[in-house]
């Protein structure tokens, strides 16, 4: 039923989308500008900023480290959030509702302070390796994202399918993985993506949890921007976008095959 109101919703959707895409487009466009400073509109056209990315060791190295950390942190966060969310949602009482909110709390602490506290307790006091501590910090900031999404997903899923699985001989654990998890993949994936991206972009937590050979991409870019503001940063952003796009298309192809409506 393409009523007017549906149209209205679509229009808001499209406007929102435009707002989202416009800055991205802007970044892509400026990455080709020939002037030595980012400017819009661009006057000339060049690929040289893309070449310059590869001259910046810290970008390449930072990208790898950031990717590693973000992947590991968001994966472990998703893995920890799943059972925790399950324990919380199976019974809906005051205690659980409260604990659920706790899952969100750590990020209410300014992340810089969190990073610094981890630095002074884990690295300095407990002599943990830096990389492990960094991972832990990112794990902590990822957890709420995964937990929230998974909790929301589990809430909405009708529990009787799980009951049916138990009766058909599935243990709690196997019912969990065979029935609940496949039905909330949207939530799990979204949680993973959100926490991945949050970790990948995060600066505050990593500020102190850095050291020799532990360079993160966003910090590297921030440093670079303090002294240069040529379009290299636009170029690297465009590359990341392209990467994301490719990844999304790939995932779409793989996951798109499953024909079910979740």
């Amino acid at each position, binding site marked *: 039923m393409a009523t007017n109101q549906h149209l209205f919703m679509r229009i808001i959707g499209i406007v929102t989308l435009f707002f989202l895409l416009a800055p991205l487009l802007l970044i892509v466009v400026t990455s080709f500008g020939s002037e030595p400073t980012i400017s819009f509109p661009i006057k000339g056209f060049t690929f040289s900023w893309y070449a310059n990315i590869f001259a910046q060791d810290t970008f390449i190295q930072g990208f790898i480290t950031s990717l590693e950390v973000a992947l590991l942190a968001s994966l472990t966060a998703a893995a920890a959030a799943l059972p925790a969310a399950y324990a919380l949602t199976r019974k809906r009482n005051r205690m659980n509702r409260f604990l659920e909110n706790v899952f969100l709390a750590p990020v209410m602490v300014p992340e810089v302070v969190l990073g610094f506290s981890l630095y002074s307790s884990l690295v300095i006091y407990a002599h943990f390796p830096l990389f492990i501590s960094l991972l832990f910090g990112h794990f902590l900031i990822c957890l709420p994202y995964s937990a929230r999404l998974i909790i929301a997903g589990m809430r909405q899923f*009708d529990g*009787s*399918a799980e*009951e*049916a*699985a*138990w*009766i*058909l*001989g*599935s*243990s*709690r654990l*196997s*019912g969990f993985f*065979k*029935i609940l998890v*496949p*039905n909330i993949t949207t939530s799990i994936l979204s949680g993973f993506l959100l926490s991945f991206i949050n970790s990948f972009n995060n600066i505050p937590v990593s500020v102190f949890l850095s050291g020799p050979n532990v360079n993160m991409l966003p910090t590297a870019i921030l440093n670079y921007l303090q002294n240069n503001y040529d379009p290299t940063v636009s170029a690297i952003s465009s590359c990341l976008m392209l990467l994301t796009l490719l990844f999304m298309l790939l995932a779409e192809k793989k996951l798109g095959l499953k*024909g*079910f*409506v*979740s």
Partner: protein
Amino acid sequence: MAALDVKNLALSYDGKTQILNDINLHVQDGELVSLLGPSGCGKTTTLRSIAGLIKANQGQIFVNGKDISKVAVYKRNFGMVFQSYALFPHLNVADNVAFGLKNKHVREPELSKKVDEMLDMVGLLDYKKRFPSELSGGQQQRVSLARSLVTEPDLLFLDEPLSNLDAKLRVEMREMIRAIQQRLKLTMLFVTHDQSECFAISDHVAVMNRGTIEQFDSSEKIYHEPATEFVARFIGYENFFSVTKSLDRQHFLLKEGQVFKAAGASPNSSSLTIRPENIDILETQPDADGQNILPGEVLFSTYLGDSYRYEIQTALGTVIAVSSSDKKYPAGKAVFLDFPSRKLLGLNK
């Protein structure tokens, strides 16, 4: 393979209203017992608490004499058709049905063979690859039925498993269920609101009312000798006449002054009852002794396909009678009602 004993089951969802009240049930090995009762009386709740899906506040459940309250649900080897189907939305029809078999480590090619056989029995072989959201209501219900039957559980709970099927399919399915049940000697607890289904399929019937079992007897016994007015009403007796006193072993003085002969009623019956379809409607007063004959006037009729249902005004109040549809009596028509003495039942509760 499984005898079920339920002892003093009591349950409340909110700690205030008592939903189940001292439920006792004994289901023998290989028996099919139906739970019959009005909407909201606690049938589903009873099944769920026996299956272990909700915790009863009181009572014990024994399977083959062993208390199973400590046994995890998944180890009980039960089966269930949920009233709301509870299909797995992310699995197609075949995978839904195969789910329980896989848990029992049934391997290909046996797995596919069993699944296909079962799907064929419920008439959904062509729908193997469909997802639940792409099925009609009745098709979903049949998937749920197939899923529960295919594992051949020791004890199977069927919660209105045929409610969304058409008459023909219902009969087919219930015969299939009964055949499987008897072939494999499965023990089943069956919830239905369809009485012919209930009587067609059950060894015993438990009639529930507000969380208690009012009568637990063989089908025939329930049908012909309801123990209470509630049971009688529930299984289709619609005409109740208060007895003032019994005159002798067979004759009863009714409140309104009439005398009815009821062949099988006990002398201390407090009321007499009869099914609408057992009342004969006559156009003229019969010449016979006139016993159990009452004049009346048709108020209203309803067409039921094979019969008409009449509301008839008599000296005993409005009487409901059903008679074959060969002939229709118009409203206003004066008729005579014959209450066959063998069909009049005495109740004392």
